[in-house]
């Protein structure tokens, strides 16, 4: 098949346009890569400050990862000045929100109780389901609770947590996810603590070499 002049012109035109677009995108990526990483780190830092007890370490620096790939859980520990673990936080996903999944940062104390929770990402209805972000009283209901101190369901389902007027699905999803987080912590506690202390030991031997 022989290409005629018009076809060659078309190919060249599209090639040039696509090349210019590629250069533009690559340049923007190079310029924005660091600011985006910094913005994400700052957003995570801010959220972690709210769900972790007072600490003197950088939780993002001391993070450990359990599991692999899709099942990976990144744990951010809070340590006091003496290096004792005061608590830790990780993100859980409630897949059954009213519109899409809700991501929640759950902070726990070593005694299996909740220190605080914060919703980091959601698409729930403004004015209804978004109470999980705005309703401080509701968020406070989680503080200090553990698996046996509450019925981990919303009141409509016979539990101890309030639903919102006109919105039951969202609080139900969040309560379920936080409960799941506490169960996970109970099961994995020894593993997590072991990993955290070896991570620390690695840190120290690493420091000695320097």
């Amino acid at each position: 098949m022989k290409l005629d002049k018009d076809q060659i012109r078309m190919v060249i035109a599209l090639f040039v346009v696509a090349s210019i677009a590629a250069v533009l995108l690559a340049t923007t990526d190079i310029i924005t890569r660091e600011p985006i990483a910094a913005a994400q780190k700052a957003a995570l830092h801010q959220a972690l400050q709210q769900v972790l007890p007072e600490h003197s370490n950088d939780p993002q620096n001391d993070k450990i990862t359990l599991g692999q790939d899709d099942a990976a859980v990144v744990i951010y520990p809070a340590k006091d000045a003496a290096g004792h673990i005061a608590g830790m936080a990780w993100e859980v996903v409630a897949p059954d929100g009213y519109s899409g999944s809700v991501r929640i940062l759950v902070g726990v104390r070593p005694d299996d109780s909740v220190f605080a929770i914060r919703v980091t990402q959601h698409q729930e209805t403004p004015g209804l389901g978004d109470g999980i972000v705005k309703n401080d009283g509701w968020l406070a209901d989680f503080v200090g609770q553990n698996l046996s101190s509450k019925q981990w369901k919303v009141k409509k389902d016979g539990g101890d947590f309030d639903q919102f007027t006109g919105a039951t699905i969202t609080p139900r999803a969040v309560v379920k996810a936080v409960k799941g987080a506490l169960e996970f912590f109970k099961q994995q506690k020894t593993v997590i603590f072991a990993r955290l202390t070896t991570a620390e030991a690695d840190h120290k031997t690493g420091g000695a070499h320097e």
Partner: protein
Amino acid sequence: MNKSEIFADGFWHNNTIFAQLLGMCPLLGVTTSAENGFWMGAATLLVLAGSNLVVSMVRGLIPKNVRIPAYITIIAAFVTVVGMAMNAWMHEMYLILGLFIPLIVVNCAILGRAEAFASKNSVSDALMDALAVGLGFTFALVLLGGVRELFGQGELFGFNVFGESYPDVLMFILPPGAFIALGFILAAINLINRSFARRAEARVLAQSTAEAAPATVEAQ
């Protein structure tokens, strides 16, 4: 067309939302508050300026048969650039608008301006057109977002207007409220346009009767 005509046309007479009813997806999706509407409008304005600029620059160089894929590539590139820039420097707003930023690509208003205007006009005219259409779109988004925020939550740009005792009217925040508020806004705009037209008509009529009047008096 001179620049002020281009502006009046893009901003008002051919307003993307009020006159053409295009770009409904971002309009209904993000306008739960005036601020969201403003930033969505600003992002669209930037994309529009970029695509109109480049399309106008390469006009005549792109063969007719492949112009649509070429324009879409240009538009998609600018949308991605704006999205990455927002992610980097306006992270919180990026998280709120999130999904709707990539969707600017399929806002037919932008392809429409590239095809109908930028590909046939000079670079400076194309930029003026992008500014006018972008501002008109932003104006519409802020207006609708403002109305929904005001009646839905009693606030405007996050400031309380109606006092704490205002019962939030949820319907305005939910999607049906967007349609209802848009309907009333469109009705109001049609009223304004009609009264302008009537006034212009009356002026023409007054002129012609003033000329005709002496003749009628004489006839009586």
